[in-house]
Structure formats: structure tokens, C-alpha cells
């Protein structure tokens, strides 16, 4: 059995984002990087399947980007992936979801993967398109935003999260692709011995030019921070009136009192 998990390295969300000089994406200087949260769920689920299937199953982790993404790749290897593909592309951040999916598809098309795992979306771009587009390009069955996963003899049973907390159950035959959502699992910590073992695992570097044959279908026109907001809402009047106002706001704008 062959498994693939696709991951993206994203900036730590605590970072302060500033537009880059072209005004098309954020400036990468001084940012701290980590694995996209949803991709961690994908890696964890892939590693669990790899462990269930045991010998003869191979799990590859793939990431596209500059040299720094190797840090995220190494984390995935330390979590239990067997080997890695690093598609070297210093300009990955400027590519649209169609191009990113095309690059992965070009890598995957002759590899006979049975299951591909991706995050539901990236925490920076947030298009949620790469996984599903990749499935389409490879002609794989696909389901998105999964919060439960079981595999049995060529069939995946995935639990999906729908609006308002409703769950759906989807069955799909492999080859298949699933995109993973918060709640699917709790990703393991890479242990020190596994970080050491990961150093010996193979990372194959591929130049993006060898795989990318598609132009973009969408381009980013501009990137700008939100306008500065005022200092919040100040409630006034007697206590009873303020409580009524507050309850009204909580009911209308939050889920706290629903």
C-alpha cells in the first residue's frame, strides 16, 4: 500500500504580517514557521494508517517551497512518515491552488498512491482548493473536511463535518484523497529518538520546473491588512439596560448563548 501526505509550512499565526514590496503577499522576513495545523491532522492520520497496515506500506510526505520547508518535512518524518519529497520552489507562495495541485499531480501520477491525505486548508492562503483539485486531476475519489477516518480493504469510511455541528458519513473506494479537519485526531509529538531517526530518512529533492506545466488560473491582485478598527463597543446606561444590551450582542454575534 502506498500513502502520500501533502503538507505546507506556514508562518506562526502569532506573527505580525506586513505586505511584501509587490503588495501581493506577506513579507517573509523575521517570520517563524511551522507546519500548517490541518496538515498535522493529515500527517497523524496517515501515520496511523501506516502503522495499522504495517510492513509493506510506505508513507511519503511531500511539501513544495523553499529550503525552509524541510523543517516541516523533518517534523513529519519524525512523526512517522517513511520518506519525503521536497519540491524546491522559492516562489511557491505566489502560485495559485491550480498550479500547486498540478505540481503534486505531476509527481503522483505514476506513483500508484492508494490514499492521499491533505489538510482541509492552509492557515495562510486558506483556499481549501488544493486537495480537492488534486483529487480531480488524478481522478481520485475525494471527500473533504473529515473528522473521522477508517480504512478497511480498499474502502475508506470518513466522517465529515457539516454546518451547525451535523456529521455525515461518506464511503469511498481507493484510490482516494481526504482533506483533514480539526477534531480528526490529536497529532503526536515528535519524540527526540524519532527526531534522531528522521535524520536518516531519505528526502528526495525535485526542481519545480520538472513538474510544473500549468499556468495559473487565478492571480492575487493585492494584499493588505484590515483597516484599523475603533476601540470596541462601550455599553452605557444603568446596569439592567447594559445587561440586556450585552445579552443581545452575545445572542446576535456569538454562539455563546445559542
Amino acid at each position, binding site marked *: 500500500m502506498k500513502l502520500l501526505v501533502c503538507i505546507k509550512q506556514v508562518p506562526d499565526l502569532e506573527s505580525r504580517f506586513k505586505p511584501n514590496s509587490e503588495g501581493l503577499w506577506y513579507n517573509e522576513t523575521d517570520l517563524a514557521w*511551522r507546519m500548517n495545523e490541518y496538515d498535522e491532522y493529515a500527517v497523524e492520520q496517515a501515520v496511523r494508517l501506516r502503522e495499522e497496515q504495517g510492513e509493506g506500506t510506505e508513507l511519503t510526505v511531500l511539501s513544495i517551497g523553499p529550503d525552509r520547508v*524541510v*523543517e516541516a518535512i*523533518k*517534523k513529519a518524518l*519524525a512523526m512517522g512518515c517513511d520518506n519525503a519529497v521536497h519540491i524546491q520552489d522559492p516562489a511557491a507562495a505566489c502560485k495559485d491552488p491550480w498550479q500547486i495541485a498540478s505540481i503534486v499531480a505531476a509527481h503522483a501520477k505514476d506513483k500508484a498512491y492508494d490514499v492521499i491525505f491533505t489538510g482541509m486548508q492552509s492557515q495562510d492562503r486558506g483556499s481549501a482548493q488544493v486537495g480537492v483539485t488534486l483529487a480531480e486531476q488524478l481522478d481520485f475519489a475525494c471527500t473533504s473536511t473529515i473528522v473521522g477516518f477508517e480504512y478497511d480493504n480498499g474502502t475508506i469510511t470518513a466522517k465529515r463535518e457539516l454546518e451547525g455541528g451535523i456529521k455525515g458519513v461518506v464511503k469511498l473506494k481507493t484510490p482516494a484523497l481526504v482533506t483533514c479537519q480539526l477534531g480528526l485526531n490529536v497529532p503526536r*509529538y*515528535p*519524540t*527526540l*529518538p*524519532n*527526531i*534522531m531517526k*528522521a*535524520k536518516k530518512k531519505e528526502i528526495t529533492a525535485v526542481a519545480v520546473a520538472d513538474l510544473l506545466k500549468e499556468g495559473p488560473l487565478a492571480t492575487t491582485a493585492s494584499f493588505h491588512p484590515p483597516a484599523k478598527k475603533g476601540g470596541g463597543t462601550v455599553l452605557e446606561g444603568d446596569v439592567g439596560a447594559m445587561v440586556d444590551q450585552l445579552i443581545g450582542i452575545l445572542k446576535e454575534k456569538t454562539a455563546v448563548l445559542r
Partner: protein
Amino acid sequence: MDFELSQDHKVLQSAVRDFVEKEIKPIAMKIDEEHMIPDTLVKHMGEMGFLGSYLPEEYGGAGLDMLSYAIVVEEVSKACGSSGVLISAHTSLCSGPIYTFGTEEQKKKWLPALNSGETIGCFLLTEPGAGSDAGGTATTYRREGDEFVINGSKTFITNGGYLGTGVLLASFDRSLKHKGITAFIVDLKSPGVTILKNENKMGIRGSYTTAFAFDDLRVPVENLLGQEGKGFNVAMDTLNGGRIGIASQALGIAEGAFERALAYSKERKQFDQPISNFQAIQFKLADMWTSIETSKLLTYRAACLKDAKKSYTMESAMCKMHASETATFVTKEAIQIHGGYGYIVDYEVERMYRDAKITEIYEGTNEVQRVVISKMLLS
């Protein structure tokens, strides 16, 4: 010169940081209040490999290097100084000398359980009458057949309360001073070992600091660590390495307090503006950060020298001294920046201040570090 951590060290740092953020930070205050690191956390740190980071894989260690170890202790200590010193004393002061001075049989026998955290290690050097002056060791031993019989007492033993594995120093002839000292590996669950007390301390309250009495503690001859009469060398070499661990602990405590002080200075408003707008606060932050960065450079450098198998005695003394003084300085200023709130337990910087002070004292007082450094300069 490249002052960047390698990609592998960054992966390690971020993995440890995630663990600390989720598993240690939320309970650090409880650890201090209850004078106890939960067994579940000790076990979890063992599973993570925190208790055998730089020991070779063949003995159940993670097989990483000294710099990785320094990073682990630093990251853990950012949240909890007690957990930081547990790792440091366990690794540097017990597994370390067994690995450096032990025979192959001893390494195979003792290291796997230490590296996994199944047993917790400690170092039994300090006595009521012998601290900085190790030559004053009054615990004695005699040989009886295939055993050594140890009598005496030890005090201020970090991790002692776990009754795990210890590296113990005892003398066969007190008149020989340091030339009469020998090191042993001891199982502290053996008959003849009594805990006199676990000390109630100002800081690192989750860490055991234990006083022991030994009354005819019988140790098989195969537990002799190194040669008879060479225990002083074992102790000095062990403390050398240990100073990197304590420097890392102190560095972590300082960084933990700094993070809080920086965040608070931007949130806290006085005179309609954040207090970080005031130069009095800005200068404090600048001084704190500069001390932290110099401590980090010294500590990482000492670790890298040890990894490169170069001499690091002076560097480990300097990093321990500087990082510990940075820790007391930064934690004190962090309280000052917090004002009255800094004096309240909930804001945690008061705990860090209490935790920081010991780093100037143990693993060789800073006065001893200055002796080490100046002796090397003048020799």
C-alpha cells in the same frame, strides 16, 4: 561564523516548545504550589526522550548532541524551572558520569532505565560539611568481600526523593582529602538508605532536594565508577558538563520571565498609554534582552565545544555564571515591570524570580565559577 541553529536543531526546538506549551505550562503553577512534578509528566518527558537526549541510542538515549540537550532544558525551563532541573540533574549528573566513566557492563545495566525515565538519577556529592570543598567529603566506605559498605550523609540532593539511581562520592581515608574519594553507582532503594527530609525551598519547589543518611549501605564491587581514589575527577568532570545544563535552565527561566514582561508592558496602560511607551520600561527590556542573548550565546557555545570534544571548562563556568545572574536580574525586572501584579502568584513572574536564585548557587556557586575562570586566565 554562523549563529543560526541547524535545521535539525530547529525541528527539535519547535517539537519541545509545542510539548512544553501544552503539557507543562498549564500546570507549572500547580507544580510550584504542590511541591511536586506529577508522575505522569515525568513519564511523559521520558517517553519524549527528554531524559536521555544526548546519550547514545545503543543505551536507549535519543543519540542527539549537547546542544540539543541545552535546548531541551532551556525550553522546559521557560515554563517550569523545577522540571528543567529534573532533566538537568538526571542527565548531566547521573547518566552523564555513568556514560563517561562507566564500563560497558555498567552502561548497559544502568543507562537504558535512566534514559527512558523509568528511574530518575541524582548525584550525591554535597554533604552538610562539604559543598564547594568536595575534598571535605566525610561519607566513608570500606570494602568487605565483594561489597563496599558506605556510611555517612548527603544533603541538597536534587531528584533524591525519587529513590532512583545515584552517583555517590565517598572517601576511604578522609586524611587523603580529595585523593581519598571514590565514585559509586548506587540503587537508592537499597537497605541502609534513609531519607532524612525533602527540603522546603524558596524556589524550584517541584524539584526534590533531599537529605540522606547511609547506614551500612552495601554496594557490589561492580558498581565502582572509575577507579578507587579518582572520584574527585569524576565529580569535577561531571560538574563541568552539568554547568551547561544549569546555564540552560537559567536561560530558560529568564526567557520565560522576559516573554511575560514584554507582553505585559504592551498591555498595561498608565496615563492613557501602554507602559512600553515609557523609556524607563524600554531600557529595562533592552537590558534584559541583551543579557539573555549573551547568556544564550555563551551557553550554546559551551555545548558546541563539548560536542566538538574540545576543552570547555572555562566556557561552562562562564555560561553558568552569566546565565544564572541574568536569570535573577531578568526575573527581578520582570516583577518590576508588572508592578504590584508581579508580586501576585497568578502572574507567575514571582515564581520565576524564586526559581532563578538557586541557579547562582548550585552546580558550583558563582563565586566558585569566578575562581575557575580566573584560575584559567592566570595559569
